[in-house]
């Protein structure tokens, strides 16, 4: 099977998956009845006519099946509807809040990649030494530490006790830290990024170390050593490259995990990103935002998995397509 056919097949599966998730969420939202009625249930003086008018405005008087396809058609054209709570286009909201989420997640994954490779190489080249044992136990502990608890500890130590970093938000509202918008933004990013990077580094280090240990036993490493290459070159040029391939596929999973638990991360740091928006939306039953968000997050997740899978196939000629 050619690579093109493989990609097309995976793409088709991805589209089916995204549609499936949107159907699940749409069905659930409809199961609770008319959201307008629920939101206005406790308000005195709201007449039935007013409820009907608002429902009509949001197309809620149509049967669910038609509404779903109308919604889908609009999404295809790039229109995610209007938020009930914010009265803003959901597409624009997802973009602005999504950028904030990416602002902490992408640096976190890059930092943890570099850190994990360095730590894992140090440990794997000294297998069974004290350093190796320390790295292994640290990574195992780190993997079991709940991310949000790490965040809470970070805030407690670095914001409340030492007073170095701010404990919430992405920007200062009144006076910018150190008088510059850029530094202010970066300063706010430190703790959330540290929390995400902590967990990722632990996971990636464990994976990278076991791959390295495995690769270093291969004959081609011995051949490289026998040909008189310096050890640094053997390790970083020949071994790391091969040990990195499984880590690459794991990046997709890790990214999905980070995106999926963004509500927790962003609640800990009151970070104005997709996760925070999502929590607000499901508390306030802002259903266009709920639909748009689940859709966008699923699409991002599926894309990440797809990209890593394709990269895997392209990089490693031993992988057979099935």
């Amino acid at each position, binding site marked *: 099977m050619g690579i093109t056919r493989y990609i097309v097949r995976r793409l088709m599966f991805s589209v089916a998956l995204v549609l*499936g998730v949107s159907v699940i969420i749409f069905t659930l939202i409809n*199961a609770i009845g008319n959201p307008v009625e629920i939101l206005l249930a406790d308000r005195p003086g709201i007449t039935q006519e007013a409820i009907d008018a608002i429902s009509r405005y949001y197309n809620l008087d149509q049967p669910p099946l038609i509404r779903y396809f109308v919604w889908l058609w609009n999404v295809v054209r790039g229109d995610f509807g209007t938020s009930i709570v914010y009265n803003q286009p959901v597409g624009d909201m997802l973009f602005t809040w999504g950028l904030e989420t990416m602002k902490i997640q992408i640096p976190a994954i890059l930092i943890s990649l570099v850190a994990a490779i360095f730590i894992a190489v140090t440990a794997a080249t000294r297998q069974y030494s004290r350093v190796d044992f320390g790295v292994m136990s640290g990574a195992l502990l780190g993997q079991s530490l709940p991310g949000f*608890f790490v965040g809470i*500890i970070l805030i407690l130590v670095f914001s409340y006790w030492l007073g170095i970093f701010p404990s919430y938000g992405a920007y200062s509202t009144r006076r910018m830290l150190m008088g510059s918008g850029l530094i202010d933004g970066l300063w706010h990013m430190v703790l959330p990024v540290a929390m995400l990077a902590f967990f990722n580094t632990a996971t990636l280090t464990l994976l990278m170390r*076991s791959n390295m240990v495995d690769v270093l036993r291969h004959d081609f490493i011995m051949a490289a050593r026998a040909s008189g290459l310096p050890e640094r070159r053997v390790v970083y040029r020949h071994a790391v490259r091969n040990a990195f391939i499984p880590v690459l596929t794991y990046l997709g999973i890790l990214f999905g995990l980070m995106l999926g638990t963004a509500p*927790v991360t962003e609640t800990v740091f009151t970070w104005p990103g997709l996760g925070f928006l999502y929590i607000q939306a499901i508390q306030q039953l802002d259903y266009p935002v709920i639909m748009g*968000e689940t859709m966008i997050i699923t699409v991002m997740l599926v894309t990440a998995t797809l990209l890593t899978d394709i990269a895997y196939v392209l990089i490693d000629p031993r992988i057979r397509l099935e």
Partner: protein
Amino acid sequence: MTEAPAAAALATAPPARPPGMWRQGWQRFRRNRTGMLGLTLVCIVVLVALSCAWIAPYEPNDQSAMMRFGSREGPTWAHLFGTDRMGYDVLTRVLYGAPTALAVGIGAMLVASVIGILIGGISGYLGGMADELLMRFTEFFLVIPVFIVILAVVRLFGIVVVGSPLESIPYLNLMTIILLLGLFGWPSIARMTRAEFLRLKEMEFVEAARCIGATRRDIILRHILPNALPSLVVIVALGIGGAILAEAMISFLGFGDPKAISWGQLLFFNYEALKVAPWASIAPGSAIFMTVLGFNLLADGLSDAFNPRLKQ
């Protein structure tokens, strides 16, 4: 939970027979220090869960500390972990969180195991078209953003049940969370079951069973499934820790069961007072960490014990 079959096998195995799979596994496991540490942590949590009504210094809903010590009082001899913003004794609440955590972990994994073993077993044993279809279905559940979907379902389901007879079920919200974690947690079990069934159904002893005319049910239930269990036990142990963590995160976001005492719930209530009463957040957080670590290490040790060739 997962220890029960192992313990039973140990107790009933006559000494003359060569050590069975479970006994060999236990002998290897006993020498694994991290695995034993995990087992110890898990045992502590189980003991606390069973005895929390007797060892807890106060009643879980006792707010009388408000009268003498006040809320958010730092750790003292009377209140070892301090009191929280409602005047509850933090230590008592943390101890009472253990049964909830175990109920979530074990309950969710029971649901997940039933679905996962059924789907994985059918898929692996039958193969062909059924396998293809079921695996696509499994993949669907593997890729969707489970946590996001569960949050929405918990919230929306909470509205749907208002006024329905379902409302009278005790701890309905917690039950929903357990059920959802199970309903979305089975794919890894299904994959492992399938892989084990694919491997085992070609083995000679299964061939032999087929030759002497064993029924299909006997082959699956008495020959294939018992041999697939060691790998499944590892996944289930990991899953219990994962489910406990997931419930903690759901409760931390405020979607937990307000009637149940869970560690995530405690964090949700006390996180906003982190600056004035850090002990009220650190104690439940550490409890989650210890429990999840226990199950992770246990799974690690079990995996080394049952698959010694994989160990590096």
